[in-house]
């Protein structure tokens, strides 16, 4: 194959576990070009996972975005922010920061429910978009006794 810029290559818009990426290992001691499968790259993450996108401050009924990971809920009055459908397997984290009126988060499509009511600061939920069934709460948490957190209705 003739030399070609990476930007000139055909674009993959998703990857398969068997796909290969280029990686350089042993950087400090004896740098070596290697290939690695996407499976090995993703299944053995060597450090923590962090998100650098700016968290969205969701004030009152502002729509919750589906482009960022973290939404920070702030209310000055009872509100019902909406969240649109996501993409397969997408994870969304919502944390109530300041609550002066319950924030009733209402997904466009929700698995076995219609809303999550964040009634207290520190209420938090992790949602995963599981396909046609919609957003599924896979974790809820809150301050105080075990079992605290947003109420799913």
């Amino acid at each position, binding site marked *: 194959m003739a030399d070609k810029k990476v930007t000139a290559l055909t674009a993959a818009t998703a990857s398969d576990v068997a796909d290969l990426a280029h990686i350089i290992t042993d950087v400090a001691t004896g740098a070596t070009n290697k290939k690695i499968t996407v499976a090995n790259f993703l299944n053995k993450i*060597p*450090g923590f996972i962090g998100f650098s996108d700016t968290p969205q401050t969701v004030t009152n009924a502002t729509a919750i975005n589906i482009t960022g990971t973290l939404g920070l809920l702030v209310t000055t009055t009872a509100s019902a922010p909406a969240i649109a459908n996501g993409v397969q397997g997408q994870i969304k984290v919502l944390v109530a920061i300041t609550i002066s009126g319950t924030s009733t988060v209402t997904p466009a499509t929700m698995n076995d429910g219609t809303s999550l009511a964040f009634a207290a600061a520190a209420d938090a939920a992790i949602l995963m978009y*599981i396909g046609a069934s919609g957003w599924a709460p896979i974790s809820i948490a809150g301050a105080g006794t075990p079992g*605290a957190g947003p109420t799913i209705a």
Partner: protein
Amino acid sequence: MADKKITALAAATSTTTADIAHLVTAVSTNPQNKKITVANFWNKIPGFIGFADIETKTGAGAISIATTLTALISEGAIANQLADGIQSQLKVIVFITDGGTSTLTPATMNDGTTLAFEDAGDAAMLMWIGAAGWAVISQAGPGTPGAGPTVA
């Protein structure tokens, strides 16, 4: 080094935070080839994370450890199993259709033996923590706070 196809390179089967990957930045304005450490790649993910794989499991039997997400459907009281995973693997299980309780029994489970999914919407997130087995790190379900699968 002579030109070599990526497929001809020696294979790495895991990475370290100091390893380097190839990245093309500023794609739409001024594409530039750059290196990036694996640490910076994972520690500063610029968007959300999604998992393209999903298993829809209907009825009794083993739940996949090859996919992140399993959507579980019961057609009566059923027993499901989960084999051992690999270090720090995450597994998400959402009970989407309740035709009877699904009792999930991991092959190895930290401080417990089963999770009972009794109501549609019950969900759990497990992490494989090594020799101690699958640890339940999150439970959720519809209704009052604290709802979700019962760990026993």
